[in-house]
C-alpha cells in the first residue's frame, strides 16, 4: 500500500523541491504544468484599451508515489523546499493509493515505486 503526495507549488521552486526530494531518497516523480486560483492576486493585462483580468497564476504540480510510512516525511520535504512565505506558495496533499504498477516490469506494490 502506498500514498500519492501531490504538491502544487510556485514554478521557480521546482528545482529546489526536486533536489530536496532527491536528497530525501525519493527516486521518481511526475511533474506537470498547472494554473492556480486562490488568495494570490492575478494580474491585469491591457490590449488596445481593453483591460483583461487574469486571475490564474502559473503553478507546477509535483506528484510523488511513496510508501505509506514515508508519506508524512515527503509532505514535509515538499513544504520545506517550496516555502517562500509569500501568498501563493501552494498546497500539498496526500491520497491513499490502492495499487501501483511499474509499466516496464509489470511488478506491483512498493517495489514498483
Amino acid at each position, binding site marked *: 500500500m502506498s500514498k500519492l503526495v501531490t504538491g502544487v507549488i510556485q514554478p521557480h521552486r521546482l528545482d529546489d523541491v526536486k533536489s530536496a526530494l532527491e536528497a530525501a531518497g525519493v527516486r521518481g516523480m511526475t511533474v506537470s504544468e498547472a494554473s492556480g486560483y486562490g488568495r494570490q492576486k492575478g494580474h491585469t*493585462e*491591457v*490590449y*488596445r*484599451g*481593453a*483591460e*483583461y483580468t487574469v486571475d490564474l497564476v502559473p503553478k507546477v504540480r509535483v506528484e510523488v508515489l511513496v510508501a505509506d510510512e514515508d508519506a508524512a516525511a515527503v509532505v514535509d520535504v515538499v513544504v520545506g523546499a517550496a516555502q517562500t512565505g509569500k501568498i501563493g506558495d501552494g498546497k500539498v496533499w496526500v491520497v491513499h493509493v490502492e495499487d501501483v504498477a511499474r509499466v516496464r516490469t509489470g511488478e506491483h506494490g512498493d517495489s514498483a515505486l
Partner: protein
Amino acid sequence: MLDTGVTAWMLVSASLVLLMTPGLAFFYGGMVRGKSVLNMMMMSFGAIAVVGVIYVLWGWSMSYGSSVGGIFGNPFDQFGLGGSFDPVTVLNEDTGAFMPTIVDVGFQATFAIITVALVSGAIADRVKFGSWMVFAAVWVTLSYFPLAHMVWGGGLLSDEGPFVFGDAAPIDFAGGTVVHINAGVAALVLALVVGKRKGFGTEPMRPHNLPFVMLGAALLWFGWFGFNGGSAYGADEAAGLAWVNTTTATAAAILGWLLTEKIRDGHATSLGAASGVVAGLVAITPAAGDVSPLGAIVVGAVAGALSALAVGLKYRFGYDDSLDVVGVHLVAGLWGTVALGFLATETGLFYGGGLAQLGVQVVIALVAIAFSAVVTLVVALAVKATLGWRVTEESEVGGIDLAVHGETAYETIAQGSVIKEVRA
C-alpha cells in the same frame, strides 16, 4: 530612353508592397486567438489569390483605362492588358525617360491586394471563407478600382477633377483615400453588417502571439517603403523624401502611441508599439511627398496618439471591428489626408497657403467615405442575402480554423491522431 534606375526601383517597390499582405497576415494573425489564426491569415492569402488574377484581367483597365465619367475606367478598354494598353510610361516629357508600363501594372496590383486584405481585420474569427472570397472579388471591382481611377487615374478626385481650388489640388501621395479611408470605411460597414463575435466585449480575445504581431508590423513597415517610396515614380529626391518621411513619421507614431498608453493605462505595450507603427505608416501615406521631415514628426506623433484613443471606441459604440481597422486605418488615414491642409509645404495653412488645401482635402475625404460606404453596404448585404456571412456559432466557439479549414495552427503533444485515409 528606358530609365533602368527608375525601373529597378519600381520593380523593387512592387516586390515590397506584395510582401505587405503576408506581413498583414501576421499582424492580424498574431492578434486573434490561436484557434482562428489560420483563417485570419487565409483572408489575406485569399485576397492575394483573387485580386492577383483579377488585376490583369480587368483591374488595370478599370483603374487606368479610358474613363467612364471620371468614376471608373472601362474594363474592356485594356482587358487582359490588351486593347489600348500602352507598353511605355513616359516619366519625363523633356528627357523622354520612360519605364515599361507592365512594371506599373505589377506595382498597382499590389495596392489593390493589400487594400482588400486590410478590410478582413474587421470581421475576424467568424465569416465563411467562400463569402470572403466572393466579397473580395466584387468589392475590389466596385469600390477599389473606381476609387483608384478617381484619385490616380485622372478621375473625379484627381488634379484633373472638379475639386481644385486655386493652387490647391487634391493630394493623395500613396493612398490615404484609395487605400486607407476606403478600407477603413468598408471595415466599419462590414463589422455592422456581419455582426459581433460571440462573447465580444466580455470574453477574453487577447492576441495569441504578440511576436507575430511585431513581425507583421516590421514586414508592413519594410514593404511600405515601396508603397510610399515607389509612389514617387522615380528614384530621385521625391522618393528619398517619401522614404525619410515614412521612417520619421512612423518612429514618432510609436512614441505617440506608447506615451498615450503609458499615461492612460500605466504600461507601454508591445501591441501598442506595433499598432503605432501601422498608424504612423497610414497617416504619412497621403502626405509622404508633400511634408517636410519635421512635418512628418507631427503627422506621426498625432496619428499614434489619435489611434491609441480611437481603438476603444468600438466597445463604447458596440461594433465589433475586431482588429481595429477603423481605429487605425480610417482614423489615421483621415488624419493624414486632412493634415496636408495644414502641413503641405507648398500649400498648407501653416506654410501660408490659406485654407484652400484644407478644404480640398476634407472634400476628397468625404467623397471617398461616401462612395466606399455605399458600395460596401450594397455588396455586404448582397453577400448576406445570398451566401450568408457567418459560420455557425459552434464553429466560432470551437475554432474557425478547424471548422472551415480542417486544420489547427499548432501541433500539441497529446494530439492523439492517426492517419486514417489518404487521397491521392
